[in-house]
């Protein structure tokens, strides 16, 4: 952590924490995949989550190698995640309504 902070600056802990939380969410999602697979339009939701994870990973990696490439990947991943999440907002209401 100290080495990482010395290399990338004071925001390092937040970026690493984001990545760690993202991995925890992925882990929980895999363990509870039956629950998540039963959600409406779950593929779009999973796609949005996967691109967020890519973005958080690229944010960390860009400080070590190929900054410009991983910076671009980070922003493209955010864009893809935004598209996927927005499309889920469109698709989900078709199958998910208020409980009666």
């Amino acid at each position, binding site marked *: 952590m100290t080495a990482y902070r010395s290399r990338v600056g004071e925001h390092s802990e937040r970026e690493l924490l984001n990545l760690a939380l993202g991995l925890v969410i992925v882990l929980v999602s895999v363990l509870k995949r039956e*629950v*998540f697979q039963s959600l409406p339009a779950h593929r779009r939701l999973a796609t949005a989550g996967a691109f967020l994870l890519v973005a958080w990973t690229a944010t960390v990696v860009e400080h070590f190698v190929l900054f410009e490439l991983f910076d671009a990947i980070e*922003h493209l991943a955010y864009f893809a995640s935004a*598209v996927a999440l*927005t499309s889920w907002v469109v698709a989900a209401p*078709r199958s*998910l309504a208020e*409980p009666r």
Partner: protein
Amino acid sequence: MIFLVQTATALVLALGLVLALRATRLPVSIRVAVAAVLGTLLAQQTMDLLELEGVAWADPVGDTLAGAVPFLWGALLLLVSDRFHLRRLSSERAQTHSLIDDVPAAVALLDGHGRVVRASATWRELFPATEGTPPTATPRSMPESLALAIGRTLAEGGRAKGDAERVPGEDRWWSWGVAPWNEDASAGALVMIEDVTERVRGQADRDSTQRLAVIGELAAGVAHDMNNLLTILQLNLAMLRDVAAHERPALTADALSSMNEAVELASTMTRGVLRLARAESSAERELVSLPSVVEDTVRLVRSTLLRRYELVSSVEGASTLAGNATRLQQMLLNLIVNARDAMPEGGRIDVVLTETAGEATLRVIDHGVGIAPRDQSRLFTPFFTTKGARGTGLGLSVVRAVVEEHGGRVAVESALGRGTTFSITLPTSVASEPRARGFDAPTIAPGSSRS
């Protein structure tokens, strides 16, 4: 390029935010959570754009917002899962209630205290205004076994069912089933009642019809033999008249003895037919001697068989069981008549009663035409017959009904051209002195006889 991507991302996020806030079909909580994620991401992107434009405070604010995204994302997933799970439970509950409401049988869902929480229309007809009340606490009577089963299922779990049980105080019969609502018995139970009164009455009618058919057949044989016996009586009377005229006492005694035997035989035959004709209830149970049932039935049928038939009975042991002698005799009569019909050219029919621990096995064996394998599975189906117009198709269904009434089982072995063996296995009681009843002979005598 990065600027363009970030701008496009911000625009898509803004669009998503608007759509999320307008998605009225989504639960409010989910709309708020999605809006929070999209809004935070939008704010983060905006801060990044401002940072590119050299706004100093945008960087720390953007970082803070970025730090919130994973938490918001995780919260969104949990919320969506929870709401959808609730929705599915609610949907399943609605389906179950709809099913209970519409099912034609009387179905009720009881809570852990046995109170009715949901009932079908048919149930409400049986137990008016009982929702919220245990069905066992209403004025409506129910079979005692059903009330006990409900209590047992609620206390210990497990399933129970009853078939064609009479409702106390009513001329109605119910079949019923009780099952726990789920693995936890205390969660409640599902009770289903079906009114099978018509079926029970129909079965009784079919039994009566079949019994009348057998009686008719027997009556023809009895009439034939009765005629022979009466002829003997007439001849002997005529001879007595002549002998008396010539005063020959020895011949007179012989003639009287012969007449007495003929009268006894005639009396036995008519008593047998009359007993069978009497419509005794199948619920009428007493201790019955199986050897006596076999001997009496064989004696009765033997008198009606033509000479080309040889009816042989073999009885071992002194089996008794709690049952209905008339029904058992009807069962055996059916099997013997079937055996006779399977041998139109005549032959030997064996009736064998054996006894093992707790069980008696009665076998009726013929050496007739046999039964085709494809017909064997349908033999006990009412109205199924291999005799064409000569058969009613009821005999073997009555056999099965009688066997089931006595807690037994029936099996058939047959080979085309070689004959058929029907095996009836019945649970026996420990033999006791008092009320063992056969057909005519109250004595239970081990041994065998042969005609």
